[in-house]
């Protein structure tokens, strides 16, 4: 092979791999991304039932009901709305009434959400950033509340 054709092989194989990767990334970005909403977002933005999303808000006081088996229902609220959430499984350590959480799952109908994952990070002072901002926006943020910027201590 000549020098020129060798270089051509090198460059074209690089392009093939890059094009393949770019295709994968674009496909994945279209299909695997989950948007974050608060209960009032869902009402105002008319999110269609069946959509997969992340729902964030505060666990409404007095709303947690543990049924037989591992089924749990609770309400997630923010300033202007609330949504009933059903979930089957163990709740994370930091799940408490009044606590901010994020759940991932499918919107079944307006006001009803089926979660397959309840997320709470490994630090009581941590609040999911989406939630902290939304709470601030709606005036529910109490100063000195867990999640204030910089409250997270490092290590990992």
């Amino acid at each position, binding site marked *: 092979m000549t020098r020129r054709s060798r270089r051509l*092989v090198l460059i074209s194989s690089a392009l093939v791999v890059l094009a393949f990767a770019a295709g*994968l*990334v674009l496909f*994945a970005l279209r299909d695997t*991304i989950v948007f974050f909403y608060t209960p009032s977002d869902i009402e105002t933005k008319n999110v269609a039932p069946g959509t997969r999303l992340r729902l964030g808000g505060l666990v409404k006081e007095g709303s947690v009901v543990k049924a037989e088996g591992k089924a749990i229902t609770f309400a997630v609220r923010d300033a202007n709305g609330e949504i009933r959430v059903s979930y089957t499984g163990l709740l994370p350590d930091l799940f408490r009434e009044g606590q901010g959480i994020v759940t991932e799952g499918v919107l079944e109908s307006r006001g009803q959400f089926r979660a397959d994952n309840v997320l709470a990070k490994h630090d009581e002072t941590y609040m999911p950033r989406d939630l902290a901002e939304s709470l601030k926006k709606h005036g529910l943020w109490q100063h000195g509340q867990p999640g204030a910027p910089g409250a997270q*201590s490092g290590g990992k």
Partner: protein
Amino acid sequence: MIVETGHFALILALALAIVQAVIPLWGSLARDATLMRAAPSIALAQFVMVAIAYGALTWAYVSSDFSLVNVFENSHSLKPLIYKISGVWGNHEGSMLLWVLILVLFGALVALSARNMPDDLSASVLSVQAWISGAFLLFILLTSNPFARVGMPPIEGRDLNPILQDPGLAIHPPMLYLGYVGYSMTFSFAAAALINGRIDAVWARYVRPWALLAWLFLTLGIAMGSYWAYYTLGWGGFWFWDPVENASLMPWLAGTALLHCTAVMEKRDALKVWTIFLAILAFSLSLLGTFLVRSGVLTSVHAFATDPQRGVVILGILTFFIGGSLTLFALRAPMLKQGGLFAPVSREGALVLNNLLLTTACATVFVGTLYPLALEALTGAKISVGPPFFNYTFVPLFIPIFFAMPIGQLLAWKRGDLLGAAQRLTLVALAGFVAALIFYAMQGGPALSAAMGGLAIYVILGSFFDIVTRVASGSSAGAMMSRAIGLPSSAWGTTLAHAGVGVTLLGLAATGWGVEKIASMRAGDSVDLGQWQVTLDKVAPRPGPNYRETVAHMTIRSGGAIVAQIEPSRRFFNSRRMTTSQAGLLNVSLGQIYVVISDQETEGPLDTRLYWKPFVSLIWLGPLIMAIGGALSLTDRRMRLGIAQRAKRRRGPEPKTVAAE
């Protein structure tokens, strides 16, 4: 007094770094040997100063000196000694100091071996190192001083975040930092090559040990972090594609590419410019990781703006080093003497393919990690890029790597025989295929797991194929033995490192065969978990040094016979009013039984999550084998700098390779 000494030593270290950043570089540009030779002693002095500072901070932790803000916020007098020591790096200020300590330690090591290097190379390398250490020392002193005092010293500290009080996390950050910072060495060598305008196979020999060392520690550090997350977070997961994890994976991918690329450069004097680029890339990604973790940008793009000082300074350092080195690269790289091209089907060609796939995979992780941040900063839309994204992008790029690994090892340098290599591997490929069928027959479960398991067997056997055929060609057992010993240790190193990849893959494949149960248990209840039965005997409190613990005593049986007892527990740390979960773990051959409990409501049942994870240990055993392979390669005699130097002397005066200036 000791604390003030530490603070003062840190300031002296900064002064030394500034001198070291300027004088030797000046010397190397002006060809002044006296100035160049000043570098090693300054580097050693700088190391001593930072070590004194670090020692002083450690002393403050061990003696619980709560007049220091840093100690007050992160320590507690009742904390066990090991966590007082590891607590030094369990917070922002201390971990940055550890970062710099490792940086200057590596600088000191270069200084000690400087006799074996050309003066201008060691001078430029140490000078670039000092630019980096100077920048970070300035950062520590200006924005994150660990030696700041409190006006009214409190009696007791706030304690280290309980989740960090764990042996795994005591070792994980130093390992990871040894890796991250190790890439500063390859970076300095690359920058020195660009400054001096000279790069050759001898340069590759100096760089290779550092590339190996950094890679080895980063591999161990990532594995350790993953195991820590696995057993402390109580979700039974070991990798979450979390931005913090991705931040360590990206330099690893670039570093792995660099490691393979230096091999080509050393053997064939080719791919020079690409090697330099990868060295810059690996360190840039390490810096990016430091920035992502340390600036608060991950918690919120806006948190970054509310506490701008630290984030902006790190961003400034990041921009300076990445931008500066890329500018230098753009200016000087075209002047470097180009190496030769080679046939696409050859060992070099295979290594280029490896580099191509690894860097592309690295790019997908980069996109997945930074896209949400960029999108939020630009449009305000909040999205989460989770595991599915990486499963669609990263995994398909890695599958060809697994297939190509054993083939690449069999190709000869210069001109390889692809068909021949494939033919020689027929048996190995067949073994992998049969293994996949056996896995499927025995475990059932997802076909993907069986296929991945087969691929893993192919990779493991394929790694050993070359070495086994070389040894087996001996006529007698004795001859085989002497052949095996006579092989260069780097050959064994490659084999083990590649086999380690296969071992990890097997562990990953086995995740599909696990069993997961969630149960509400009362004393006396039993749960079937695959082939095991887990019984809750009783729940009882147990005192700890700085926490209260509720322990569930459980017995594991197999067909009626008692196998072991496990004690998953919950620990309540009063100083931070925080609870952590301690998983109950039992190693059974290579698998693990993993049990976590929730808080018990008074007299209510105990919510329990139980997993049986066959072969799960392989996931972390693999990186350990990879690291052992790396360590073996390091002992190879070709790695010793003296030998490189002698080889260079034999080859006569070097200036022929100097670029046209």
